[in-house]
């Protein structure tokens, strides 16, 4: 075992030099490179973390917005549905009202028309029946309808007892103005018939009464003797009423069928 002291110190110096050179060319550089890379990686991780945090935040914001939008969407849909329902109800109500109105108007118009029609019917029927009856009586039995009516009225007047006659010529009537009996007919009465009727009246009613003839459509092909508040009449009103009733029923039936 031999130690050469020069070599020994030379080795120490060599190692020190090696240490210096390796520090300069190896460890220093490599450590710096590793540290730089680690720093870069750390920076990248930090950046990635930050980016992820940002992304998370953005995602949270988006999520919140989405939820908000969904909520609003639902709300809007609900509102729209409610509005539509309300609108529909309103429209339906309006339509119903309109239908009601139209129906009412139609019914009113129909009633009015019916009234008019019936009125006309009544009038026409009255006239027609009167004319037909008159002609039939004349042709078949050689009887004058007016005369016959006048006769009937006279008979009725005659049939009245005292009490009834007095009541017919109202007691409350003014004495000075005289008693007025109005004879209403739908048609013109021939003069001789008028005279006969006037005579019959004066015969039946003891007091001096004035007889006045009036033409009126109300009596419908009949005769009417009217004093104050009382009347004696013969008319075809009942017959015509029956016809009208039948007609009315027929019309009503038709409406129901529709």
């Amino acid at each position, binding site marked *: 075992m031999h130690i050469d002291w020069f*070599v020994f110190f030379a080795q120490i110096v060599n190692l020190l030099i090696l240490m210096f050179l390796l520090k300069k060319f*190896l460890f220093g550089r490599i450590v710096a490179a590793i540290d730089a890379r680690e720093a870069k990686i750390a920076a990248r991780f930090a950046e990635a973390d930050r980016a992820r945090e940002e992304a998370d935040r953005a995602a949270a914001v988006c999520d919140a917005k989405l939820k908000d939008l969904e909520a609003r969407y639902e709300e809007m849909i609900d509102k729209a549905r409610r509005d539509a329902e309300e609108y529909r109800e309103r429209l339906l109500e309006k339509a119903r009202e309109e239908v009601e109105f139209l129906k009412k108007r139609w019914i009113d118009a129909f009633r009015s028309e019916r009234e008019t029609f019936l009125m006309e019917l009544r009038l026409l029927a009255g006239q027609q029946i009167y004319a037909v009856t008159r002609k039939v009586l004349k042709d078949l039995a050689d009887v004058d309808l007016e005369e016959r009516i006048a006769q009937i009225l006279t008979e009725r007047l005659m049939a009245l007892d005292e009490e009834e006659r007095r009541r017919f010529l109202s007691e409350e009537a003014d004495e000075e103005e005289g008693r007025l009996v109005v004879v209403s007919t739908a048609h013109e009465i021939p003069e001789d018939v008028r005279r006969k009727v006037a005579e019959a009246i004066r015969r039946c009613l003891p007091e001096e009464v004035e007889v006045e003839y009036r033409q009126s459509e109300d009596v419908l092909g009949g005769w009417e003797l009217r004093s104050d508040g009382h009347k004696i009449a013969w008319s075809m009103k009942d017959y015509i009423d029956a016809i009208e009733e039948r007609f009315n029923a027929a019309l009503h039936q038709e409406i129901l069928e529709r």
Partner: protein
Amino acid sequence: MEVVAIHQISPDQVILFTWGFVTVNATLVYTWLIMAFLVAGSYLVTGQLSTDRQVSRWQNVLEVIVSGIRSEIGDMVKEGADSYLVFIGTVFLFILASNLFTFIPGYVAPTSSLTTTAALAIMVFFAVPLYGITKQGILGYLKEYFQPNFIFFPFHVMGEFSRTLALAVRLFGNLMSHEKVVAILLAVTPLLFPVVMQVLGLLIGLIQAYIFAILAMVYIASATQSHEETGHETNRNHK
């Protein structure tokens, strides 16, 4: 080619040049070669270092080595691993390079010379108090010699010397004996078996470099930190 004859125990005995007390022997020459290799290799590789993801193959190799050394040091000291890196790293790389080139015919590891291993051990011997004083202060460092009480002072001092001697002789003995064993085996069974021994030699060289560096680090760590903290590690790593 036989540089060191079988009867010569170390490359120190192969003297190439003498001028007064200046002696240039095979140990020095091979040391210079190793140094040149290490420095030139480092210089070439670290000339263009990349800090990006793409790293050259050789830079990767050096990074693996340096990171390995750093992590080994880091396992033993809690902080400031980089301050030991240059010393421990240089010692480790020098011993490793010296030992691994033994597969080249004609090459003799400088570490198979007691002079070199003694120089390495002496450096560790001085590095320990140097680091210890730097980290703990002179009083803090000296106090460690009187733990657990002053009676232990001589034992600590003896320990310092003996472990330095052990460092030097362990490395020298292992390397030198291996070379001798290979030389003898080559004479006895010239085929195949010496190759196996050479492979084994590479392993031994690696292990010895590791052991030397680790022990140096353990000694330094025990000096820079209190015994309570590193005592169990020291015991575990001490061979």
